[in-house]
């Protein structure tokens, strides 16, 4: 996601109180970061399961975008490259590029987002997934940030602004 961390409003800070889900990482930044996923500095996440990696944008990203009203996604069968844009989201007045954390072949696209783009806001790590990719390089996955590293990255970004 072409975004950086932004200090959130008091209302967003309430998200940190959701301690009931054991897979959540506590974060001093005011959005959810899930364990078990890998993260890019441009605020996309990757979930690697077997031969497929699922990609979406993080809770930080959707929070700073605002209400997502339109999602532009590629076609299955195409390819993505690490660090390059593969689609865009529109929120109110802005389109924002979404960048792929890894390279590979697109095997599936979340077509439900065309009718329900708001799933990116309401469920950024689950229903709001964007594409599924067959990774072409395992080293690219390993170079991404862990949930702990991403949390710290967000905190450092927030502190620098």
């Amino acid at each position, binding site marked *: 996601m072409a*975004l950086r*961390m932004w200090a959130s409003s008091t209302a967003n800070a309430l998200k940190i109180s959701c301690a009931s889900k054991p897979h959540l990482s506590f974060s001093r930044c005011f959005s959810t970061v899930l364990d078990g996923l890998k993260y890019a500095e441009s605020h996309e996440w990757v979930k690697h399961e077997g031969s497929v990696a699922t990609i979406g944008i993080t809770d930080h990203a959707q929070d*700073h*975008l605002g209400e997502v009203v339109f999602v532009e996604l590629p076609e299955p069968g195409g390819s993505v490259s690490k660090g390059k*844009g593969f689609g865009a989201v529109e929120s*109110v*007045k*802005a*389109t924002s590029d979404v960048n792929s954390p890894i390279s590979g072949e697109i095997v599936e696209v979340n077509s439900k987002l065309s009718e329900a783009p708001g799933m990116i806001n309401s469920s950024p790590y689950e229903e709001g997934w964007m594409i599924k990719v067959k990774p072409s390089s395992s080293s690219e996955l390993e170079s991404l940030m862990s949930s702990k590293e991403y949390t710290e990255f967000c905190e450092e970004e927030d502190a620098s602004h």
Partner: protein
Amino acid sequence: MIIPQTRNIGLPMMNLMRFKGLPILQQLQIEEQLLRTSSENWCIINDGTNDPTIVMGVSGKPAELLEIESVLRDQVPVIRRFTGGGTVIVDNGTIFVTFICNKEAVPDLQPYPRPIMSWSSTLYSKVFQGIGDFNLRENDYVFGNHKFGGNAQSITKNKWIHHTSFLWDFDVRNMAYLKLPKRAPAYRSARGHLDFICRLKDYMPRSIFIDKTVEAAGTQFSLRSLKSEAIETCSKTEFCPSTRFLTNEELEAAAVAGQ
């Protein structure tokens, strides 16, 4: 205007290009190309566009936003631009101001929609100081609760664009081509076009507005004026913009499909 050199020390460089009556399609395609291919900062000012043209945002649905039958009957051109946001009808009474910036160009500015919008309002607050009751209301520039400037953005990995169409004047008849949008700011309160918008010309002379905008930009950037021929060099690259006219066939199909 001459900006004292001592004030420019340490300010990031920004290219300033001024046009008058440049076709809006050409302006938007230039902007899209600069956003995607240039590593420099840009301010583009287009003082009016010659032909009345409808400009929709990237996800605009013609059937929802336009009176398609009238648009087709009167052969009003319709553009889908590369930035987000709503639909406008522009003509020679519209003044366009665009900022294209690298992410580091504005210190401490986080490059996503709301901070950029807020930064823009700070810049224009200098332009309209003491004039009317200027404010940024949701995502619009207003005097009081009447809109005179609409904004749109696009944010990439390393750059962002924020562009504005200012209603210096408008033809009431042109508003009839636009439907009331489904997504509207709360402060609009379901007002029709004519009750919602106002004319900048009632507040400030045209040339004064442009000069003050350049002056305000000069407080944050070291402006370098480029002649329009510089853009011809840019357009010789292989970049293919997404901004384009919609065809009559597309508009007719949209009307049939209700999209």
